[in-house]
Protein backbone atom coordinates (compact mmCIF):
# COMPACT_ATOMS: atom_id res chain seq x y z
CA UNK A 1 0.00 0.00 0.00
CA UNK A 2 2.06 2.94 -1.21
CA UNK A 3 0.11 5.72 0.48
CA UNK A 4 0.51 4.14 3.92
CA UNK A 5 4.24 3.66 3.52
CA UNK A 6 4.43 7.23 2.28
CA UNK A 7 2.63 8.33 5.46
CA UNK A 8 5.15 6.38 7.54
CA UNK A 9 8.00 7.99 5.61
CA UNK A 10 6.60 11.48 6.26
CA UNK A 11 6.00 10.75 9.95
CA UNK A 12 9.44 9.31 10.60
CA UNK A 13 10.98 12.06 8.52
CA UNK A 14 9.45 14.55 10.93
CA UNK A 15 10.58 12.49 13.91
CA UNK A 16 14.13 12.33 12.55
CA UNK A 17 14.08 16.10 11.97
CA UNK A 18 12.96 16.67 15.57
CA UNK A 19 15.54 14.28 17.02
CA UNK A 20 18.39 15.79 14.99
CA UNK A 21 17.38 19.27 16.14
CA UNK A 22 17.15 18.12 19.75
CA UNK A 23 20.59 16.48 19.63
CA UNK A 24 22.00 19.65 18.07
CA UNK A 25 20.46 21.64 20.93
CA UNK A 26 21.95 19.43 23.62
CA UNK A 27 25.35 18.66 22.14
CA UNK A 28 26.32 21.98 20.59
CA UNK A 29 29.16 23.90 22.23
CA UNK A 30 27.86 27.22 21.00
CA UNK A 31 24.68 28.52 22.60
CA UNK A 32 23.50 30.22 19.41
CA UNK A 33 23.89 26.96 17.47
CA UNK A 34 21.97 25.19 20.23
CA UNK A 35 19.19 27.72 19.72
CA UNK A 36 19.17 26.98 15.99
CA UNK A 37 18.75 23.30 16.86
CA UNK A 38 15.86 24.18 19.16
CA UNK A 39 14.19 26.16 16.37
CA UNK A 40 14.61 23.13 14.10
CA UNK A 41 12.89 20.95 16.72
CA UNK A 42 10.04 23.44 17.09
CA UNK A 43 9.54 23.51 13.30
CA UNK A 44 9.41 19.70 13.35
CA UNK A 45 6.77 19.72 16.08
CA UNK A 46 4.76 22.22 14.02
CA UNK A 47 5.02 19.77 11.12
CA UNK A 48 3.66 17.02 13.38
CA UNK A 49 0.68 19.23 14.21
CA UNK A 50 0.06 19.66 10.48
CA UNK A 51 0.24 15.86 10.10
CA UNK A 52 -2.41 15.47 12.81
CA UNK A 53 -4.56 17.85 10.72
CA UNK A 54 -4.39 20.67 13.23
CA UNK A 55 -3.01 23.36 10.92
CA UNK A 56 -4.06 26.20 13.22
CA UNK A 57 -2.06 24.78 16.13
CA UNK A 58 0.85 24.19 13.77
CA UNK A 59 0.79 27.75 12.50
CA UNK A 60 0.55 29.09 16.04
CA UNK A 61 3.47 26.86 17.03
CA UNK A 62 5.50 28.57 14.31
CA UNK A 63 4.19 32.04 15.19
CA UNK A 64 4.68 31.80 18.94
CA UNK A 65 7.51 29.35 19.54
CA UNK A 66 9.64 29.93 16.46
CA UNK A 67 8.73 33.59 16.11
CA UNK A 68 8.63 34.85 19.67
CA UNK A 69 9.92 32.37 22.27
CA UNK A 70 13.15 31.67 20.39
CA UNK A 71 13.71 35.44 20.03
CA UNK A 72 13.19 35.72 23.78
CA UNK A 73 15.72 32.91 24.37
CA UNK A 74 18.14 34.64 22.01
CA UNK A 75 17.90 37.87 24.01
CA UNK A 76 18.44 35.81 27.16
CA UNK A 77 21.57 34.28 25.60
CA UNK A 78 22.86 37.76 24.86
CA UNK A 79 22.54 38.54 28.58
CA UNK A 80 24.84 35.66 29.50
CA UNK A 81 28.59 35.46 29.17
CA UNK A 82 28.80 31.80 28.29
CA UNK A 83 30.78 31.79 25.06
CA UNK A 84 32.49 28.63 24.01
CA UNK A 85 35.67 29.31 26.01
CA UNK A 86 33.78 30.32 29.14
CA UNK A 87 33.35 28.56 32.45
CA UNK A 88 30.54 26.28 31.36
CA UNK A 89 32.29 25.10 28.21
CA UNK A 90 33.93 21.99 29.66
CA UNK A 91 31.42 19.18 29.60
CA UNK A 92 29.73 17.67 32.63
CA UNK A 93 31.13 14.57 34.31
CA UNK A 94 29.99 11.18 33.00
CA UNK A 95 27.89 10.46 36.06
CA UNK A 96 25.98 13.72 35.75
CA UNK A 97 25.45 13.15 32.03
CA UNK A 98 23.96 9.70 32.68
CA UNK A 99 21.72 11.00 35.45
CA UNK A 100 20.58 13.94 33.33
CA UNK A 101 19.69 11.75 30.37
CA UNK A 102 17.80 9.36 32.66
CA UNK A 103 15.86 12.31 34.05
CA UNK A 104 15.03 13.46 30.54
CA UNK A 105 14.03 9.97 29.42
CA UNK A 106 11.75 9.22 32.38
CA UNK A 107 8.77 11.44 31.49
CA UNK A 108 9.03 10.47 27.82
CA UNK A 109 9.03 6.79 28.79
CA UNK A 110 6.10 7.10 31.20
CA UNK A 111 4.03 9.19 28.80
CA UNK A 112 4.82 6.89 25.89
CA UNK A 113 3.91 3.72 27.82
CA UNK A 114 0.70 5.34 29.05
CA UNK A 115 -0.30 6.29 25.53
CA UNK A 116 0.54 2.86 24.13
CA UNK A 117 -1.22 0.78 26.80
CA UNK A 118 -3.91 3.01 28.27
CA UNK A 119 -4.92 5.16 25.34
CA UNK A 120 -8.64 5.83 24.96
CA UNK A 121 -10.18 4.46 21.78
CA UNK A 122 -10.02 7.45 19.50
CA UNK A 123 -10.30 8.19 15.85
CA UNK A 124 -7.44 6.75 13.84
CA UNK A 125 -7.90 9.40 11.19
CA UNK A 126 -7.56 12.85 12.68
CA UNK A 127 -10.44 15.20 12.02
CA UNK A 128 -9.82 18.83 11.35
CA UNK A 129 -11.53 21.36 13.58
CA UNK A 130 -12.42 24.58 11.86
CA UNK A 131 -10.73 27.69 13.19
CA UNK A 132 -14.04 29.56 13.20
CA UNK A 133 -15.49 26.85 15.48
CA UNK A 134 -12.68 27.55 17.94
CA UNK A 135 -13.45 31.24 17.67
CA UNK A 136 -17.16 30.62 18.30
CA UNK A 137 -16.22 28.71 21.46
CA UNK A 138 -14.12 31.63 22.62
CA UNK A 139 -16.86 34.16 21.88
CA UNK A 140 -19.88 32.28 23.25
CA UNK A 141 -19.32 29.82 26.16
CA UNK A 142 -15.75 30.81 27.07
CA UNK A 143 -16.12 34.57 26.84
CA UNK A 144 -14.95 35.21 30.40
CA UNK A 145 -11.67 33.27 30.03
CA UNK A 146 -11.18 35.02 26.70
CA UNK A 147 -11.42 38.46 28.28
CA UNK A 148 -9.32 37.33 31.24
CA UNK A 149 -6.53 36.25 28.86
CA UNK A 150 -6.20 39.86 27.78
CA UNK A 151 -6.16 41.04 31.40
CA UNK A 152 -3.67 38.34 32.41
CA UNK A 153 -1.26 39.27 29.62
CA UNK A 154 -1.57 42.95 30.48
CA UNK A 155 -0.79 42.27 34.13
CA UNK A 156 2.12 40.00 33.18
CA UNK A 157 3.61 42.59 30.83
CA UNK A 158 3.19 45.42 33.33
CA UNK A 159 4.69 43.32 36.12
CA UNK A 160 7.69 42.34 34.03
CA UNK A 161 8.35 45.93 32.98
CA UNK A 162 7.95 47.34 36.50
CA UNK A 163 10.16 44.67 38.08
CA UNK A 164 12.92 44.48 35.54
CA UNK A 165 13.17 47.63 33.48
CA UNK A 166 16.07 49.96 34.25
CA UNK A 167 14.87 52.94 36.24
CA UNK A 168 15.70 56.58 35.98
CA UNK A 169 18.01 57.92 38.64
CA UNK A 170 15.95 58.67 41.70
CA UNK A 171 16.92 61.51 43.98
Amino acid at each position, binding site marked *: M*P*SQSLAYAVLFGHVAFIVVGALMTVLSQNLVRALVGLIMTLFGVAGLFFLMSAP*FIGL*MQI*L*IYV*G*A*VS*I*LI*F*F*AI*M*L*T*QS*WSSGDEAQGPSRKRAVLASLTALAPALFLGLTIIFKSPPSLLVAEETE*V*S*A*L*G*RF*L*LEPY*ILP*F*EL*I*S*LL*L*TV*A*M*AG*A*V*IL*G*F*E*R*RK*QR
Partner: protein
Amino acid sequence: MSLSWLHMSIIIFFISGALFAAAPFIASMLLATRAKSPALYSPYECGMDPYGSAWTKFGINYYFYALLFLAFDVDVLFLFPVATAYADGAGLVPFVKLFIFIVILLASVIFFWKKGVFTWPKRIRF
Protein backbone atom coordinates in the same frame (compact mmCIF):
# COMPACT_ATOMS: atom_id res chain seq x y z
CA MET B 1 -2.21 5.19 -8.46
CA SER B 2 -0.86 6.53 -11.68
CA LEU B 3 1.12 9.68 -12.21
CA SER B 4 -1.21 12.50 -13.13
CA TRP B 5 -0.37 15.96 -14.36
CA LEU B 6 -0.82 17.26 -10.82
CA HIS B 7 1.89 14.93 -9.49
CA MET B 8 4.14 15.82 -12.39
CA SER B 9 3.72 19.55 -11.80
CA ILE B 10 4.41 19.16 -8.07
CA ILE B 11 7.57 17.16 -8.82
CA ILE B 12 8.68 19.67 -11.46
CA PHE B 13 8.15 22.58 -9.08
CA PHE B 14 10.01 20.70 -6.33
CA ILE B 15 13.00 20.04 -8.61
CA SER B 16 13.07 23.58 -9.94
CA GLY B 17 12.87 24.94 -6.39
CA ALA B 18 15.85 22.81 -5.33
CA LEU B 19 17.75 23.92 -8.44
CA PHE B 20 16.91 27.55 -7.71
CA ALA B 21 18.41 27.18 -4.24
CA ALA B 22 21.48 25.28 -5.44
CA ALA B 23 22.24 27.38 -8.52
CA PRO B 24 23.94 30.35 -6.73
CA PHE B 25 26.26 27.99 -4.85
CA ILE B 26 27.19 26.11 -8.02
CA ALA B 27 27.63 29.36 -9.95
CA SER B 28 29.86 30.84 -7.28
CA MET B 29 31.91 27.64 -7.18
CA LEU B 30 32.44 27.79 -10.94
CA LEU B 31 32.76 31.53 -11.49
CA ALA B 32 34.15 33.18 -8.36
CA THR B 33 37.83 33.95 -8.00
CA ARG B 34 39.71 32.20 -5.24
CA ALA B 35 41.31 34.46 -2.63
CA LYS B 36 42.63 33.63 0.81
CA SER B 37 43.59 36.14 3.42
CA PRO B 38 43.02 36.39 7.17
CA ALA B 39 41.45 39.79 6.56
CA LEU B 40 38.57 38.09 4.75
CA TYR B 41 37.46 36.48 7.99
CA SER B 42 37.23 39.71 9.97
CA PRO B 43 33.79 41.30 10.33
CA TYR B 44 34.86 44.43 8.41
CA GLU B 45 37.39 43.74 5.72
CA CYS B 46 38.50 47.33 5.47
CA GLY B 47 38.47 49.79 8.31
CA MET B 48 39.36 49.40 11.95
CA ASP B 49 40.38 46.07 13.39
CA PRO B 50 37.66 45.03 15.82
CA TYR B 51 38.76 44.34 19.37
CA GLY B 52 37.18 42.11 21.97
CA SER B 53 34.43 39.61 21.40
CA ALA B 54 31.23 40.33 19.53
CA TRP B 55 29.40 38.77 22.47
CA THR B 56 29.04 41.84 24.60
CA LYS B 57 26.36 41.92 27.24
CA PHE B 58 23.35 43.91 26.14
CA GLY B 59 21.11 45.87 28.44
CA ILE B 60 18.33 43.87 30.05
CA ASN B 61 15.79 46.31 28.61
CA TYR B 62 16.01 44.69 25.19
CA TYR B 63 14.85 41.45 26.79
CA PHE B 64 11.65 43.18 27.87
CA TYR B 65 10.90 44.30 24.35
CA ALA B 66 11.07 40.64 23.32
CA LEU B 67 8.81 39.80 26.27
CA LEU B 68 6.24 42.42 25.22
CA PHE B 69 6.40 41.05 21.68
CA LEU B 70 5.73 37.55 23.01
CA ALA B 71 2.73 38.74 25.03
CA PHE B 72 1.15 40.48 22.05
CA ASP B 73 1.93 37.43 19.92
CA VAL B 74 -0.08 35.29 22.33
CA ASP B 75 -2.90 37.84 22.00
CA VAL B 76 -2.85 37.35 18.25
CA LEU B 77 -3.13 33.59 18.84
CA PHE B 78 -6.51 34.16 20.51
CA LEU B 79 -7.62 37.00 18.26
CA PHE B 80 -7.12 34.94 15.12
CA PRO B 81 -9.87 32.31 15.68
CA VAL B 82 -12.17 34.96 17.10
CA ALA B 83 -11.67 37.08 14.01
CA THR B 84 -12.71 34.16 11.79
CA ALA B 85 -15.85 33.58 13.87
CA TYR B 86 -16.60 37.30 14.13
CA ALA B 87 -17.97 37.48 10.60
CA ASP B 88 -20.77 35.04 11.50
CA GLY B 89 -21.80 36.91 14.65
CA ALA B 90 -24.88 39.09 14.57
CA GLY B 91 -25.56 42.37 16.30
CA LEU B 92 -23.44 44.47 18.59
CA VAL B 93 -22.64 41.82 21.22
CA PRO B 94 -19.59 40.24 19.51
CA PHE B 95 -18.29 43.72 18.77
CA VAL B 96 -18.52 44.68 22.43
CA LYS B 97 -16.87 41.43 23.52
CA LEU B 98 -13.95 41.96 21.16
CA PHE B 99 -13.81 45.65 22.05
CA ILE B 100 -13.27 44.88 25.76
CA PHE B 101 -10.41 42.52 24.84
CA ILE B 102 -8.71 45.12 22.69
CA VAL B 103 -9.30 48.01 25.10
CA ILE B 104 -7.52 46.11 27.89
CA LEU B 105 -4.57 45.60 25.56
CA LEU B 106 -4.68 49.24 24.53
CA ALA B 107 -4.61 50.19 28.21
CA SER B 108 -1.35 48.25 28.58
CA VAL B 109 0.13 50.09 25.60
CA ILE B 110 -0.89 53.45 27.09
CA PHE B 111 0.56 52.38 30.44
CA PHE B 112 3.96 51.56 28.88
CA TRP B 113 3.87 54.76 26.87
CA LYS B 114 3.26 56.85 29.99
CA LYS B 115 5.97 54.94 31.85
CA GLY B 116 8.41 55.90 29.11
CA VAL B 117 9.11 52.40 27.80
CA PHE B 118 8.97 53.65 24.22
CA THR B 119 11.25 56.67 24.66
CA TRP B 120 15.01 57.12 24.73
CA PRO B 121 16.90 56.78 27.12
CA LYS B 122 15.15 53.56 27.95
CA ARG B 123 14.43 53.91 31.63
CA ILE B 124 11.03 53.91 33.21
CA ARG B 125 9.66 56.65 35.44
CA PHE B 126 8.05 56.11 38.79
